[in-house]
């Protein structure tokens, strides 16, 4: 399959079951909503080192938020519910409780077959040292914690669902600037897709990894098959002329969300086309043995139900 001169490899991305949640952060204005949300989703690129993978999903207008203020939504994913709950609580405490004017609300209340309520502000209330108070509106409980700027408002819980993490595709290009430009285009398109985040810096990761290492203490190491400078030293996956590879990793609330995001991203990258040095789109997998979700690139790009028609 070739789109705009770019070869779509006949391969698939392999993804895993995760637990995901969404939180709505509001504040006096978008600036402070982002300040809180950026802090909360910082250092959350990969579960391997950060516990969770998190990112800002989208911006909300005042009419879309529970308290009628500007806001953003955050998605957060982890391999298990315990770690997700722990990370959510820690990040809420350090990044939202602390952020001037910020408030936090549940982002998932319905629409999924299985929603578990997990603590959002339930334990943060104890920061109130007995002065905290709760209110219930519309069957939801909110906590009011007195703080120096007034009151910190947080919903008691948010919803956690079964989610999918590790969707990905690789952009193989003739040069590093070209690879990055394609990825930027892809991310810009993918950010319009709901229910997904691309947790790496700017949405892009350059250090793809393989399982295992020559060093006993490492359980993963650089994916030498895709490292352009090692073409002559290893069993390379790269065709000649490819000088740079970058990856976009996608976590989503469902596999359909990841498909849509994958299609939008690849389409945008391909729009730059071979004329801009984009040679191939590939994907990372473990031979299909580890993850239950397989995102076959060609299938996704052929499935017009997933997004707009590709030229």
């Amino acid at each position, binding site marked *: 399959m070739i789109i705009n001169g770019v070869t779509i490899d006949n391969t698939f991305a392999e993804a895993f079951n995760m637990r995901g949640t969404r939180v709505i952060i509001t504040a006096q204005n978008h600036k402070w909503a982002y300040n809180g949300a950026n802090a909360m989703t910082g250092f959350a690129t990969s579960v391997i080192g950060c516990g969770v993978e998190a990112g800002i999903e989208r911006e909300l207008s005042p009419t879309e938020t*529970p*308290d*009628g*203020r500007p806001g953003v939504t955050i998605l957060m994913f982890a391999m298990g519910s315990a770690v997700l709950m722990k990370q959510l609580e820690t990040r809420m405490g350090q990044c939202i409780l602390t952020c001037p004017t910020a*408030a936090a609300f549940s982002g998932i209340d319905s629409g999924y077959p299985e929603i578990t309520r997990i603590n959002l502000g339930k334990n943060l209330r104890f920061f109130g040292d*007995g*002065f905290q*108070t*709760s*209110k*219930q*509106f*519309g069957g939801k409980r*909110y906590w*009011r914690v007195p703080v120096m700027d*007034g*009151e910190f*408002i947080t919903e008691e819980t948010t919803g956690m669902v079964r989610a999918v993490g590790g969707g990905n595709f690789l952009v193989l290009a003739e040069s590093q600037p070209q690879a990055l430009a394609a990825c930027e285009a892809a991310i810009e398109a993918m950010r319009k897709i709901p229910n997904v985040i691309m947790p790496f810096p700017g949405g892009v990761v350059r250090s793809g990894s393989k399982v295992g290492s020559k060093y006993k203490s490492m359980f993963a190491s650089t994916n030498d098959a895709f490292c352009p400078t090692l073409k002559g030293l290893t069993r390379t996956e790269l065709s000649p002329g490819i000088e740079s590879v970058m990856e976009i990793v996608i976590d989503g609330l469902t596999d359909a969300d990841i498909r849509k995001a994958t299609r939008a991203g690849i389409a945008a990258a391909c729009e730059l086309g071979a004329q801009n040095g984009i040679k191939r789109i590939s994907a990372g997998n473990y031979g299909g043995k580890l993850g239950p979700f397989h995102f076959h690139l060609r299938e996704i790009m052929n499935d017009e139900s997933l997004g707009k028609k590709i030229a």
Partner: protein
Amino acid sequence: MSALTFTLKIQPRQRVDLSPLTPDNLAGKPAAEIAAIELYSGKQKLRADTVFDIAGDDASNIVIANSCNKLDFIGHGMKTGRISIHGNAGSYLGLQMRNGEIVLHGDADAFAASGLSGGLIHIHGNVGDFLAAAIAGDKQGMKGGTVIVTGNAGERVGDQMRRGLLLVEGNVGSYCASRMLAGTIGVFGAVGEYAGYGMRHGTLLLTQTPALHATIQDCGLHTLPFLSLMFKSFSNLPTKFAKINKNRVQRYAGDLANDGKGEILVLQ
């Protein structure tokens, strides 16, 4: 199907206990059985059909017509359906009601909505003392649900109220929100003395500053973001509270005598 209608045809001297006449209790009962239900009034037990003309067949929609203030325990413990009352109701309207809806077109006597834990009671009229308050021995009054009173309410509104929303559009008597445990009481009109006496938690939302006793202390003027959430939750209720959209309030807290952290918020 038409509403199951009980039209009062006597003037009872003693209070009549209507607790058997709830949608849950009457569901599926044939007319003859409903007619034969016995209702306590003083020492006597009166057959329902000697007290009421009974018509209609939809037990999920009960109407009490020509009602008077001797008819007690209407909607006692009801879990489903709707009761509309035309005329006044006696005491204990909606006692320990769990869900469903009571609409009263008239006044209610004492202890309306006591122990209410869900559903809606809408009173188009005035209510007596101890609205949503706990009955003797109980530690909690209203425990959930919504009560709207278009008229005035008596003394001890919301005594030991534990949860839920209680909105009075008129005035209320003394000791409003006494020993309140949690929940929200809103009063549009004037409030009598000793508001919030013994209050432990919860919110009393007012539009006018009442006379406050010394253990309710001023915490200053504030813009409280939670009020936006609260007023949003009122927005589809049939009450003039739905139109409030201010969130700037004078905040008083207490009752300090009871280590209380309740609040009286006066809209500015």
